[in-house]
């Protein structure tokens, strides 16, 4: 292996100077390697820490907020949900199957490291223009990787999202959210335990996988990084499944003082993190680490990112039993070191000391940068865009174009590759609503989960766009009947050293924070992925929001399908004509511009309350939020799902027709209901100051939308289903 300098390892001159100061001497090669990964953006959050501090993280429902492997949220009855969203972008750009697979593996480990049984995965994906063959290959590979890993584990993949935009041509995004269920008194933490406790490494053998992966994923992609590429990490879902069962058995028998999975920066990071929590020291002997290949150096062993490994600190006297249970599951488990009291991380190779660092220097002394943000010129340019210059196109044709757009079209091609039903908890499966609903067996409760972010909106207006993402997630939960409880976020951005990118980050984080407070969904976990750029071209800023909600009574759930002829179709919220940032402008006019419709968080909160109370009173027969493609696409989706038609008439009052049909203004929901419930709904909505408007009714077949009595849209539900359903399979093959 080539000898690398500190610069090759991703440290700059100031950082190296700081390292010398902290250490008081020159590090040896192993120590330098360990510093460089721990001080990488990926592990150290150098550029994002000051921003993340501003996020609201507290609430009575929060048991554990950011800082542990995943957030923990109280759902009553002594139970809690553990969840977190995480990125695996750069590995997926190199090898989409393994990159995405190990992304799922990593987030699932975060969940069961907390003692929780993983019960769901969601995936949030962004790819470039799907007409491009290379993009097709990435898309196909990533989906297959998520399927291969999640299905093998037997954890259902219950939801997610996929969007396509040229901004992701070179830098696809693969984010995965893991969700777990735990008894509150069985939560496990990543702590080192008592002095003298052994450190047990369980699971897969260590190979030369992904050495410097953490550093690699903190840099822009360029031709020179291609040579630096580490060995691609491959995932083994079977090993992970064994690890889950073994670890949960350890917890059930109460044998564990602390547990920490091995992720980015491998053994270095997980041992240091565990030790730092209690300001302990550790010593480990790398010659005890089971290796997959011969001749591995301490440097390689300490930095390798081989998957499916877990560091376990047993309770006093329980080490034998821990190893026994691991072995029963066919897992190797060996003592590789012990907890000490000197605050030092000592690495031995046999009896020889090969490295010695203060634990806290690795974890707490990582440099932090308060960077400069500057509003880029594009922001005002887009805001100056004059929508009236956009000529209205044929509305029926435009609708067909939108239904065909891969970002709007049915994602069944994706989620039918995922086992979304195993564990028999998924009561609203993918495609039936904007959020998935899982029952909690042996209770009347359910939870709902979703991921959302419209990154074009975030690009055009990071503050509004981020608030929109949080609001959409909350609204999707409320549509299925769940009260939003907490959120996790994954901040996918470009190079934070560029002032315009940092400006996007600043505003997006402020947007998340404000919306999170307004909607009472504190931030309990998250992840940051920066430098998503290739040859200086960056992605759209993409702060993915993963959100959890609760249904006290699972029987109050609802999906988006129209169900009964002559049900009234009612809009909750206002008609709006603003086309800024819409898919319509993009697909039908080739424009990604405009003023992002402003969101009113008070109103969003009120809308959510109307929905939740309406569900409790069983007012609705369907419920669907308006997002990409606007009112028209929402109506078509509800019709397709129910295999029914809909007949709508809207008075334009001289407003632009394409705006009325395709605006993506937030805070709007389409419900259908028995006419006898209309009064109750109107009263409820009025009491919370939400506008209602009867748009029409559910019919047997055909989607007909008239404006001022003139037919603007007329398409058979079957045809709409075919266009919408076949768009992605047509490109990708069945």
């Amino acid at each position: 292996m080539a000898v690398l300098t500190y610069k090759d390892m991703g440290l700059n001159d100031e950082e190296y100077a700081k390292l010398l100061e902290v250490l008081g001497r020159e590090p040896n090669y192993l120590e330098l390697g360990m510093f460089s990964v721990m001080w990488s953006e990926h592990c150290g959050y150098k550029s994002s820490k000051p921003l993340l501090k501003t996020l609201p993280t507290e609430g009575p429902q929060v048991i554990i907020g950011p800082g542990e492997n995943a957030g923990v949220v109280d759902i009553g009855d002594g139970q809690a949900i553990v969840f977190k969203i995480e990125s695996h972008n750069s590995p997926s750009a190199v090898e989409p199957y393994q990159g995405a697979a190990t992304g799922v593996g990593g987030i699932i480990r975060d969940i069961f490291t907390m003692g929780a049984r993983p019960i769901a995965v969601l995936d949030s994906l962004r790819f470039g223009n799907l007409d491009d063959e290379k993009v097709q290959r990435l898309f196909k590979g990533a989906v297959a990787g998520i399927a291969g890993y999640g299905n093998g584990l037997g954890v259902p993949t219950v939801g997610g999202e996929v969007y396509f935009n040229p901004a992701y041509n070179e830098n696809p995004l693969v984010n995965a959210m893991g969700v777990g269920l735990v008894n509150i008194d069985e939560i496990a933490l990543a702590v080192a335990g008592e002095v003298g406790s052994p450190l047990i490494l369980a699971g897969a053998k260590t190979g030369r996988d992904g050495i410097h992966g953490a550093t690699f994923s903190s840099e822009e992609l360029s031709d020179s990084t291609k040579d630096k590429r580490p060995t691609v990490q491959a995932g083994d879902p079977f090993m992970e499944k064994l690890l889950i069962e073994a670890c949960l058995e350890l917890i059930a028998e109460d044998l564990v003082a602390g547990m920490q999975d091995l992720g980015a920066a491998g053994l270095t990071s997980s041992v240091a993190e565990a030790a730092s929590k209690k300001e302990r020291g550790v010593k480990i002997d790398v010659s005890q680490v089971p290796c997959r290949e011969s001749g591995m150096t301490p440097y390689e062993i300490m930095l390798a990112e081989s998957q499916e490994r877990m560091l376990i600190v047993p309770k006093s006297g329980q080490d034998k039993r821990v190893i026994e249970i691991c072995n029963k599951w066919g897992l190797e488990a060996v003592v590789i070191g012990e907890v000490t009291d000197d605050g030092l991380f000592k690495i031995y190779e046999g009896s020889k000391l090969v490295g010695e660092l203060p634990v806290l220097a690795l974890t707490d002394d990582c440099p932090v940068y308060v960077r400069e943000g500057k509003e880029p010129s594009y922001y005002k340019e887009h805001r100056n865009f004059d929508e009236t210059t956009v000529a209205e196109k044929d509305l029926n044709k435009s609708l067909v174009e939108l239904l065909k757009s891969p970002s709007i079209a049915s994602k069944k091609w994706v989620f039918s590759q995922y086992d979304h039903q195993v564990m028999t908890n998924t009561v609203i499966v993918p495609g039936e609503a904007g959020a998935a609903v899982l029952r909690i067996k042996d209770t009347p409760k359910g939870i709902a989960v979703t991921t959302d972010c419209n990154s074009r909106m975030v690009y055009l207006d990071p503050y509004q766009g981020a608030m929109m993402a949080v609001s959409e997630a909350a609204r999707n939960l409320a549509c299925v009947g769940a009260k939003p409880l907490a959120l996790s976020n994954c901040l996918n951005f470009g190079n934070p050293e560029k002032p315009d990118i940092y400006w996007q980050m600043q505003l997006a984080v402020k947007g998340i924070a404000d919306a999170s407070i307004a909607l009472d969904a504190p931030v309990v976990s998250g992840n940051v992925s920066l430098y998503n750029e290739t040859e200086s071209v960056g992605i759209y800023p993409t702060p993915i929001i993963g959100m959890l909600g609760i249904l006290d009574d699972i029987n109050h759930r609802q999906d988006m399908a129209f169900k009964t002829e002559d049900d009234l179709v009612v809009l909750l919220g206002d008609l709006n004509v603003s086309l800024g940032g819409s898919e319509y402008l993009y697909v039908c006019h080739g424009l990604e511009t405009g003023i992002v419709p402003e969101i009113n968080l008070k109103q969003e909160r009120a809308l959510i309350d109307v929905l939740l109370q309406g569900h409790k009173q069983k007012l609705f027969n369907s419920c669907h939020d308006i997002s990409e493609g606007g009112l028209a696409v929402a109506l078509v989706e509800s019709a397709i799902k129910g295999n029914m038609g809909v007949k709508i008439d809207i008075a334009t009052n001289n407003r632009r027709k394409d705006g009325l049909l395709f605006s993506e203004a937030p805070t709007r929901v389409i419900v259908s209901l028995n006419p006898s419930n209309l009064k109750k709904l109107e009263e409820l909505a009025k009491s919370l100051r939400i506008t209602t408007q009867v748009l029409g009714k559910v019919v047997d077949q055909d989607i007909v939308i008239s404006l001022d009595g003139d037919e603007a849209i007329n398409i058979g539900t079957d045809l709409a289903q075919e266009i919408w359903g076949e768009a992605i399979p047509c490109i990708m093959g069945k």
Partner: protein
Amino acid sequence: MFKANVYVTLKNGVLDPQGDAVKNSLQVLGYNNIDKIRTGKFIEIWLDAKSEKEAMEQVEAISEKLLANLVVEDYRVEVVEVEK
């Protein structure tokens, strides 16, 4: 007509969970003398071409493009002439 055999193997160092699982299960069945198992693909292609050289070049191109994932796999091609 030519027949090409394409051998696709995982690059050295890349984890092969399948090979490991097979090795473990053989161990359980009592085969204790097995050092390592690596699993790969074996692809047979029958094709028309003007010469062995042309066939070889074409199959190599196909292998790079479609049969092997060069990020994690290596490949090797053999070509022989066969009867129609």
